[in-house]
């Protein structure tokens, strides 16, 4: 068997393959659901209802999508330039650390100044976290996949150390948690009394800015060129290393905003379970969106819907909520396969 590039790509085909990917994912999930002794239709209905069946469900889904938009954008930007940033988790936590270091009273400023200052500091911190692996890649040829993955573990231990030391809340009854951010640092809620917060708007704005950078700016063009073929890009006079550094700064910064928005918008303080793997899920979100910043928003809401819906579903049935993680991982694999099949034709010879 071999693969041949398709000469033409009809609109129907570009639509049919992703739909096929989702269908395959649902079939695999159905098998698992039946193994758990439940009816797939009932389970999927409960997931859908839990994700979008009420105002509460919708708000919960959008709230859960917020950090995923940030990490999804971070991964989309990096992967576009073939900078394999698997460390969004670490960058997220550094963003959260900076938020509580500066936002719990160290800077007594009014909201209108404090929030922009925090945003800028967090962006800078996250950018610096990814600068390390990018530098090692450029300078020594160290694979950034391994360094960013290992940094996730190092940063999580670092956060654990801070939460039991310098950043520990003295009123926290011994729990490893930070103090709460001051009122001026909090991102306002979008609807009074609901969990959806200003971080969601920030995420949408980030997606728009990222879309603009990727599609309309010289940097975006250079990133795509480097991702497509670094040798050719260098030959065309594109400063490959400088583009990679800029990509790393942008990607790291975006991921760290997830930590900022979770702490300042939702949780109020930093704990070790701030992120249930948002950094890794960001990879799925970015791939489902085919690395398109606008698609990231839709993909993040879709993935968040599965998680929120599955949580609600598992409370009503005996299907473990881990079905959500399985579905998301399956969707990733079926989607990359579908994208490939829409571009290539398989010849059995």
């Amino acid at each position, binding site marked *: 068997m*071999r693969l041949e590039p398709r000469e033409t790509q009809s609109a129907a085909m570009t639509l049919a393959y992703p739909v096929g990917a989702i269908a395959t994912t649902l079939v695999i999930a159905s098998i698992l659901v039946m193994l758990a002794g439940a009816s797939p239709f009932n389970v999927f209905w409960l997931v859908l209802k839990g994700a979008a069946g009420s105002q509460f469900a919708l708000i919960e889904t959008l709230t859960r999508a917020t950090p995923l938009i940030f990490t999804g954008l971070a991964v989309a930007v990096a992967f576009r330039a073939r900078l394999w940033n698997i460390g969004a988790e670490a960058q997220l936590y550094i963003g959260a650390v900076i938020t509580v270091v500066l936002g719990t009273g160290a800077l007594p400023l009014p909201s209108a100044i404090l929030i922009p200052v925090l945003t800028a500091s967090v962006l800078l911190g996250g950018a610096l976290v990814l600068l390390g692996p990018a530098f090692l890649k450029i300078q020594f040829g160290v694979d950034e*996949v391994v360094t960013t993955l290992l940094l996730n573990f190092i940063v999580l231990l670092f956060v654990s*150390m801070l939460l039991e030391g310098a950043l520990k809340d003295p009123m926290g009854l011994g729990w490893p948690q930070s103090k709460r951010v001051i009122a001026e640092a909090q991102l306002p809620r979008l609807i009074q009394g609901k969990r959806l917060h200003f971080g969601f708007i920030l995420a949408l704005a980030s997606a728009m800015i990222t879309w603009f950078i990727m599609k309309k700016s010289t940097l975006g063009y250079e990133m795509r060129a480097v991702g497509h073929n670094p040798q050719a890009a260098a030959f065309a006079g594109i400063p490959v290393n400088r583009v990679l550094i800029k990509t790393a700064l942008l990607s790291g910064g975006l991921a760290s905003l997830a930590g900022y928005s979770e702490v300042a918008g939702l949780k109020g303080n930093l704990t070790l379970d701030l992120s249930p793997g948002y950094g890794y899920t960001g990879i799925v979100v970015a791939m489902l969106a085919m690395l398109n910043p606008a698609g990231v928003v839709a993909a993040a809401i879709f993935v968040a819907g599965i998680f929120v819906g599955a949580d609600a579903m598992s409370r009503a049935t005996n299907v473990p909520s881990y079905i959500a993680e399985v579905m998301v991982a399956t969707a990733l694999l079926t989607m990359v396969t579908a994208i490939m099949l829409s571009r290539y034709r398989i010849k059995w010879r």
Partner: protein
Amino acid sequence: MEAFEILLNASFWVAAIRIASPLIFATMGELISERAGVLNLGIEGIMTVGAFVGWFTVYAGGGLWFGVCAAALAGAAFGLLHGFLTVPLGLSQHVTGIGITLLATSLTYFSYRLLLPEVTSPPKIEAFAPFAIPVLSDIPLIGPALFAQTPLTYLAFITVGIVAWGLYRTPAGLAVRVVGENPAAVEAQGISVTLIRMAAVATGSALMAIGGAFLTMSAFNSFFFEMINGRGWICIALVVFGSWRPGKALLGAILFAAFDAYQIRLQQVAGDLVPYQVFLMLPYILSILALIAVARRATYPKALMIPYQKGER
């Protein structure tokens, strides 16, 4: 002074070899796969699967060695999936590998919750017991470390020998090595690149799964979430550190494990002065430093991460 005395303690070396064992299995698995030109980032998830399947098989009444085989088969199945997506379909090895890790891990956790819905703490099994080889295990210092371990540890060392012999002394090993350097040359000999690569990824994944099973069947005797804890990623670093050679990779794994065992003991000596998290961080930092040290002279298999298409240059 105390910090140095740790090294003269036989129990330290016993621990070092025990910590090294799962890393040796998984590193050999990743090495075979990468020598054939396929990066397998599914390693972390495949180790999780192996840890669960091996342990659960025994818990459900199977024998210990049967459990090891079941783990290997489960690992090979995920390896075949990774191989199918990356070799004939030529998908990105990075993205697919991460996908395999996410899928394998989530399927494991799903199965755990499904198969053991009622348990609050993971049940224990009768794990592999240490088996002291007569005479040899009486050698001071290294005797207990090398010759009074569980059978799975011995198997880890035997695996290194088999992998080294297989890669350098057999036609199949030659094919694997060339497929990772110059696949067109293998195809020209009438051997299928796809077949060799798929076989290498599946075999490698079986070894990774046994590495995972070591944790639940030899090092400990039960399964808990997140127990792989980055060991798979460490093994990716060890393969680079060992410049894709089984012997060097073995040395790297033992050095790493010795360091890990040392850091655990140092925590007890110097734990009041430095937060324990610093010690736990050290192995990961060491891995990054080791990568920097060898990066300049690392010679990657030339076709690593490059999908092969018949008739294409």
